[in-house]
């Protein structure tokens, strides 16, 4: 029996493999499972692993990782393909591919014909939220709906990362506990730069206290102040583009395509851009340039430059209009 497991969802792939492994009786598992690395795979090794007789079990399990990717085209690949037809029925041969597979490869077509293909795509959108909630339940805790959204925002969409984060959260709140947004904030590291966006949000709303607090939180997270200044400049450039294109009455999707940004980034930017009058953004950009030069010529500390900019931007609101 042949299997091909592929797709970017590493957690689901590993779990599927583990499931197959669980079919082999535990006490003889080590004797009946072989794991081979596709990078150093030789046909003889594979054949030896597959053709060995199962020991005190019905079947042998041979797991080969990344073989399709690393088998060179031509003779090597053809030989492997030819061997696939001769794999003994007592052997479960599983190919696990981490990256996307080439669907035109002869190995792929052969496996498609004679084996079972399973693709693992990470869940997206609402499905991902359901997935997270379900996983939390398995850990014996409840996940608040806003917290579910929040943990995805902070940790990103990779199921493996989410799984580890959920385990940590579940341990923190203890069995039968409830994970809230506050818990998530406390424990989950912001890997998606959500804090940065939140900070930019506060800044565009000119809420000086919240913006300064946001800047502080970023510095606490270990972000370099020069990086934050750079990201500020980048965001202002996006806002400039958005402001310009909105004035031309373009639709958000068209703007996103024009600027090469993701639609949700643009939608957010449209909201933020409304808070700035014409000319204000380019002024802010010019000011950032000055500060950038000043930090790089040692005339001002980057942290101070950042706070100055934040305060100026927010206070400028009262004087500018």
């Amino acid at each position: 029996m042949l299997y091909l497991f592929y797709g970017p969802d590493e957690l689901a792939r590993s779990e599927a493999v583990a499931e197959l492994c669980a079919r082999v009786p535990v006490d003889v598992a080590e004797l009946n499972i072989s794991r081979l690395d596709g990078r150093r795979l030789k046909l003889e090794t594979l054949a030896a692993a597959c053709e060995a007789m199962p020991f005190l079990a019905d079947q042998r399990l041979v797991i080969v990782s990344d073989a399709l990717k690393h088998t060179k085209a031509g003779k090597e690949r053809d030989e492997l393909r030819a061997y696939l037809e001769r794999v003994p029925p007592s052997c479960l041969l599983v190919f696990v591919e981490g990256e996307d597979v080439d669907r035109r490869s002869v190995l792929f077509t052969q496996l498609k014909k004679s084996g079972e293909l399973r693709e693992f795509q990470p869940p997206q959108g609402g499905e991902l939220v359901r997935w997270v909630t379900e996983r939390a339940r398995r850990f014996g805790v409840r996940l608040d709906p806003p917290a579910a959204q929040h943990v995805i925002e902070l940790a990103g969409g990779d199921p493996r990362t989410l799984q580890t984060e959920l385990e940590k959260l579940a341990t923190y709140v203890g069995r039968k506990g409830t994970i809230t947004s506050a818990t998530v904030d406390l424990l989950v590291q912001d890997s998606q730069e959500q804090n940065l966006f939140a900070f930019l949000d506060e800044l565009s709303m000119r809420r000086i206290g919240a913006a300064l607090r946001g800047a502080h939180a970023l510095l606490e997270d270990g972000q370099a102040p020069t990086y934050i200044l750079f990201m500020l400049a980048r965001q202002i450039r996006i806002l400039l583009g958005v402001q310009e294109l909105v004035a031309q009455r373009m639709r958000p999707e068209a703007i996103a395509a024009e600027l090469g940004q993701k639609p949700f980034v643009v939608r957010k930017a449209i909201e933020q851009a409304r808070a700035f009058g014409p000319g204000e953004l380019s002024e802010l950009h010019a000011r950032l340039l000055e500060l950038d030069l000043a930090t790089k010529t040692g005339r001002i500390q980057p942290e101070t430059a950042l706070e100055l900019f934040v305060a100026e931007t927010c206070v400028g609101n009262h004087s500018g209009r």
Partner: protein
Amino acid sequence: MAAQSLYRKWRSQTFDELVGQEHVVQTLRNAIVDERVAHAYLFTGPRGVGKTSMARLLSKAVNCLAPDPAHRPCGTCPACVSIAEGRAVDVIEMDAASNTSVEDARELIERVQFRPAELRTKVYTIDECHMLSTAAFNALLKTLEEPPDHAIFILATTEVHKVPATILSRCQRFTFTRHGIASTAVHLRRVAEAEALALEEGVPEAIARASTGSMRDALGVLEQLASFTTGTIGLAEVHSLLGMTSAAEVYALIEALLDASMAEALRAINGVADQGADLRQFARDLVERLRALLLLLASGDQALADVGADELQLLATWAPRADIPRLLHWIKLFSGLDYQLRTTPYGHLPLELAVVEALVTPVVAAPSAPPRATATPSAPRATPPPARPRPAAPPLATPPPVPRPAPPRQEAPAHPVTPPTEQNLPPTGGVAAAEHAEDAAQASAQAVPAQQAAPDEVPHEGTRTEADPPPTVPRPARAPRSPDEAAAANADFSVLEQIEHAWEEIKRDVRPKSPTVQALLHSVRPVDVEGATIVLLASSAFHKENLEKIANRRIVEDVISRQLGGTYGIRCTIEARAEVQDLRGKIREARKDDLVRAAMNIFEAHIVDIETDEG
């Protein structure tokens, strides 16, 4: 063991002893109780916040023999003791900084397979794990993913961004936060008490502040202090050890700034300079406090300012007297000093200049505006800034409007400034008048008489300086010289002087936008101002043409407008205009006269007319 460093001696032995990091402690405790210990942990955070301590605690907790899981690590059972003494063979601490190669990682992986010799669980602590090579990380990856049941990994690092994402996603990651000043101080007090060290009031806070959140640094400083001091450790010792300027001087300067007392401020600076303290450090300390004040004022959040209790009180007394625009202005001024102080041959002169500038220009947008021209109540009232909410703009005190706007002034009076504290103001101080002018009606009513007293006292070569157009001096009969015209010319030249003063800065600010334009500007100089247009004298037609290209012109105009705080245009000319003998030319000349300048400075005056000697 003879002597052990304080930070090692005071390394926490149980979860209860650990300072801060409550979120990590609770998670790990629950993990022990619920038997949900993960197989890989990653501790990140700045130095001295307890990463290694936490790793040791966890090693003990998973091996502790205490019957009740909630009490693990107990710190007393054989397992805990052997780990604490560093002789447990199953707890392996590896310094990744000196074992970076794949071979090291492979060796480690091979050994992981063996069961623990004495304890329940093998614990591998990989400190500074960001130093591992990529290959070493990859070799670890598989083991981290599915380690044998008897092993756990703890990775600790200060630089998490160097750790590959594949490793990150397989570890339970905890971010350790810096210790706040308050909690560091509390811990220092506790240690000092136990070590029988007497600390003066404020010493723990001072040490905590210098150690920027690192407990190890803080205890290191305390230990150093203890080793060379007998008896009570005082603030002076702390300051001399850390090269800090005494906080008192910083406080005195801030007090003086808030009270707008120039004399006090300069005295504070001289005090610092006399002590031979590091002026740059002083400037940094000053900016640090101003920043804290800004944060407190802006957010109303005491936690954000991160200061000890004693300083918080101080900040609270300052807060009502400070306002954000002024603070911004000061922070800008003083934060720029670091560079100047490093390069200046004049000792603490830059610091003094900054203080004077901070006090004579209570303005955000026009840092170089000479205050003498801005403070007279006549012109600024004429063109109030379009939309800024002005608490009590007093049109009643306004003399006849001036046709041409005097842009720098628009910014000047607009910020709501806290009422000046009368007793502290020197009678003729620039700030006094400035603040009066921009305050409410009654304030300017006081200011005007003070200035009206000014004229006639300094007559010089027939030039009269005077504060107020209303005729205290008889107008001569020459028709074209209206006071308006004079005031306008006067305002123009005041702007021109500002530009000349800031010319180098303007050129510098142009540079990042276009080096070409900067090069062009080297060949021109400002010669005149006509209302909102600045006339530049170019040395050749080439320069004139290029500068007048629309893109280049806009750059220059932007920079100038920003520098002066207003909207200005520029115009280029090639010929030097013959020094006109009309009123404008004379005013220009008169303003260059030392005595006239002095008169204008002292009396906040401006020129309304020029009379020659025979007149």
